[in-house]
């Protein structure tokens, strides 16, 4: 970010003209002002992140189920439950699988879209707006939309499969494990691929075009130019896109809640949904807290791995 680099002298302090003591009072008053105006943000952010985290950590070591009378210190019981209750581990597995598959698919397609939109052609603005719109609508919309598309009775998917005499035309998509996952993946990819495309497109557009001209003169072919020039220069953008998408994908909730409720059975259960149910249907804040703490740790791990992997500092995207 630009802000931390530009540690500039505050406008109020003119060190050259004012005496040293005067400059120090000015600096002190500048700092006081700075702390005063950054404090509200920090307080609010602490209230909505640090407080819940501490509460969850505390609770994860307590017996705190609203449906039971047992209270008090639980030791590691809630964490032990994660590994013994045959819910958490399958959900972790589903979530990991979903994250890898969705991020890979979305990155490949998103990269394709970005490369295509980086070319100049008539009507590019409109194409970009069209491709961009799915990302802008709420996830609830994409989930409901694709639930309609995959509906066995009046959905588009089975209609087309029937017309083309293809197999699976009578599939009730959301009623069996693999087809339900396919539907969830399509809904997720449809909404989130544009995000990757946008970030990568912005990354492509800051690559100066004379580099490509030089490569052309040197006789590099398209694939080599892409692999040796575009891809390395795209690394910062790729890092931002992947980091955001991986963490969001890991926390997938809306699509699962709306399309399958984790079903059939618990075959599309994911961690965020499991966590939500721990709070709102089991009322178990000890166990729920343990799941939440695990999720925070996993999110931090993902961020850490990416920062290590790409060796560039992340910034807000």
């Amino acid at each position, binding site marked *: *970010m*630009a*802000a*931390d680099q530009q540690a500039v*002298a*505050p*406008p109020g302090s003119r060190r050259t003209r004012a005496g040293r003591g005067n400059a120090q009072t000015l600096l002190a008053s500048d700092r006081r*002002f*700075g*702390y005063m105006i*950054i404090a509200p*943000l920090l307080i*609010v*952010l602490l*209230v*909505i*992140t640090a407080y819940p*985290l501490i509460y969850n950590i505390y*609770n994860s070591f307590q017996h705190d189920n609203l449906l039971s009378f047992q209270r008090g210190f639980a030791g590691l019981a809630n964490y032990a439950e994660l590994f013994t209750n045959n819910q958490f581990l399958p959900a972790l597995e589903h979530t990991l699988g979903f994250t890898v598959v969705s991020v890979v698919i979305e990155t490949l397609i998103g990269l394709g879209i970005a490369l295509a939109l980086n070319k100049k*052609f008539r009507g590019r603005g409109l*194409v970009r707006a*069209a*491709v*961009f*719109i*799915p990302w*802008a*609508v*709420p996830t*609830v919309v994409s989930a*409901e*939309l694709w639930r*309609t598309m995959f509906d066995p*009775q*009046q*959905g588009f998917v089975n*209609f087309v499969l029937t017309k083309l005499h293809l197999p699976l035309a009578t599939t009730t998509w959301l009623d069996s494990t693999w087809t339900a996952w396919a539907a969830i993946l399509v809904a997720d990819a*449809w909404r989130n691929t544009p995000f990757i495309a*946008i*970030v990568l497109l*912005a990354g492509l*557009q*800051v690559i100066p075009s004379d580099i490509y001209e030089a490569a052309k003169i040197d006789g590099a072919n398209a694939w080599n130019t892409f692999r040796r020039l575009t891809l390395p220069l795209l690394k*910062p953008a790729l890092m931002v896109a992947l980091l955001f998408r991986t*963490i969001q994908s890991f*926390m997938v909730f809306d699509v699962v809640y709306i399309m399958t409720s984790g079903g059939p059975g618990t075959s599309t259960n994911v961690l965020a949904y499991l966590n*939500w149910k721990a*709070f*709102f249907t089991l009322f178990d*804040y000890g166990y729920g*807290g343990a799941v*939440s*703490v695990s*999720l*925070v740790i996993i999110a*931090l791990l993902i*961020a850490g791995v990416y920062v290590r992997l790409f060796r560039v500092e992340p*910034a*807000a*995207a």
Partner: protein
Amino acid sequence: MSAATEVALRAPRKSQARALTPGKLARKTGFFLLLAIFVIVSLFPFYWIVDTSLKTPQEIDAGTTSLLPGHVTFSNYIDDFTQQDFIRPLLNSVLVAGCTTIVTVLLAALAGYALARTEIRLKPVWLGFILLANFFPVIAIVGPLFRIYVHIGLLDSYPGLIIADLIYTLPLATFLMSSYFSQIPKSLEEAALVDGSTRLRTLRKIIIPVALPGVFTTAILAFMFTWNDFILTLSFMTSPSRYLATQAIVSLGQSPYAIYYNLIDAAVVIISVPIAVLVLFAQRRIVSGLTAGSFR
């Protein structure tokens, strides 16, 4: 970064007067075919849902027989607004997203100015914390906030939801505001300060107006992020009259026996329209805000 984008976007097209060889023609056709696929895949589901939303429940039950729109009825939209009272959750969404946006811009402008233009210590620490907050799993705030909201009476209230919604908006907004502020020439505020204006007043009267385009970008993104929320309204709003539109859609015409696609699809169209309009008019702004600060 946004300046570079603008330049790239506005660069004149190279004249393509060269003759097309068959190979080139094939590649060009392939390219436009690919673009057509992108556009169709992006937009077709919207067509489908608009089409479905204009059918009667009987027609929907009868199953799909054609891709083309058939007999058009607005009864689902009318039902949504009359029987289902969908206007109420829509207004709730506008209210909550609007208030969240205002609070976000206010807090982010102050903090962004502190980060860009004051000499506070430990700036990397504050920036790092704001960055981490951006990656904080929303699900992990839901349980604890629910408990405390029950105690302090913020459950099922607009302020409670607005406070929680700030998790979506504050980190990015603060980064954006601070990067916009640091682009403003310092001479501007120095002049005002010499004239004896206080710093807060200078921020309000000089800096913010100059950074207004950035403020708009921040506000639009904050509004979109809040408008999209589902998990927080689902967790904190317990009475149907307080539901946001996203939560209300899921429970429209809810019955254990059927899903009322006609009502749901009409409502999906209704809540997508404001976002579609926003994208059409502010696309460049949204994109630049979303990608600003990503690259040095």
